[in-house]
């Protein structure tokens, strides 16, 4: 079998360098690309939802969310993306071969598909992060409407995007299709320029 390990690279390579951009002397937004996350989509098989909930609880210690929220135990997270659909993610030592590990543990109850190389993942924070997101995110992110642990699958600048609120700093994680990374980056940086933004080395 051919190994492609030597070709691993970020979809932003050649497009982005760490540093300060936009308005001088101000950092309204911090952008950090996450390259270390593994993803797997999980879809309950017909009539197996309750068995799946039990299996995930046993295997990962996570209570599967029944709505658009995320639940984390250790380095493993399950986020609700639709009825009977979740995106599982992992970092650290769990990330290697993650989809296979998930399939081995819950395969009888769910269709599991590796999504690790399908997504651009950015972590956004900073004092103006909500002002930047307000330019493209059509979901209400006010503190009363969107809380840490909430997620939303929506459309940002015509690009399907998953937004997770990680903490009330606030820190948000945005995931967009890898093939749209250049367009997504263009929207984000154009929206952040007036506040000044720092790109943090991954």
């Amino acid at each position, binding site marked *: 079998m051919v190994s492609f390990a030597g070709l691993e690279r970020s979809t932003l390579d050649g497009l982005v360098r760490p540093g300060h951009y936009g308005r001088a002397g101000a950092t309204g937004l911090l952008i950090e690309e996450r390259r270390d996350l593994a993803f797997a989509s999980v879809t309950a098989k017909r009539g197996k939802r309750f068995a799946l909930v039990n299996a995930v609880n046993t295997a990962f210690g996570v209570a599967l969310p029944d*709505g*658009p929220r995320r639940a984390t135990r250790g380095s493993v997270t399950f986020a609700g*993306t*639709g*009825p009977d*659909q979740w995106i599982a993610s992992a970092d650290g030592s769990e990330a290697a071969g993650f989809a296979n590990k998930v399939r081995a543990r819950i395969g009888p109850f769910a269709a599991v598909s590796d999504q690790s190389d399908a997504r651009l993942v950015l972590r956004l924070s900073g004092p103006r992060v909500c002002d930047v997101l307000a330019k493209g995110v*059509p*979901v209400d992110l006010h503190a009363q409407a969107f809380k840490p642990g909430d997620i*939303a*699958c*929506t*459309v940002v600048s015509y690009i*399907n995007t998953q937004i997770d609120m990680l903490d009330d700093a606030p820190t948000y994680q945005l995931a967009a299709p890898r093939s749209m990374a250049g367009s997504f980056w263009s929207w984000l940086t154009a929206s952040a320029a007036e506040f000044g933004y720092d790109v943090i080395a991954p």
Partner: protein
Amino acid sequence: MRIPCPYCGPRGNDEFIYLGDATVRRPDPQALGASDAFYEYVYLRDNPSGLHQELWYHGGGCRSWLVVTRNTRTHEISDVTFAAGGKL
């Protein structure tokens, strides 16, 4: 127009794709007169003034098919349910 998705909450209609009448049913291709029945099923639609049950796909959100009851005169939406597991 905003559609209250039962999974995602209220979202702008640009996240959805419209399919149309949720009440038409695919005819039995083996039945007598199937050709006429299919012609009606594929091409003929009522154009009601008032309440209309219709299918919308939330492609920009949870990727669910929804049955939306909408008033075609006011765009008021009185009911939204998942198509899956329903009576379709």
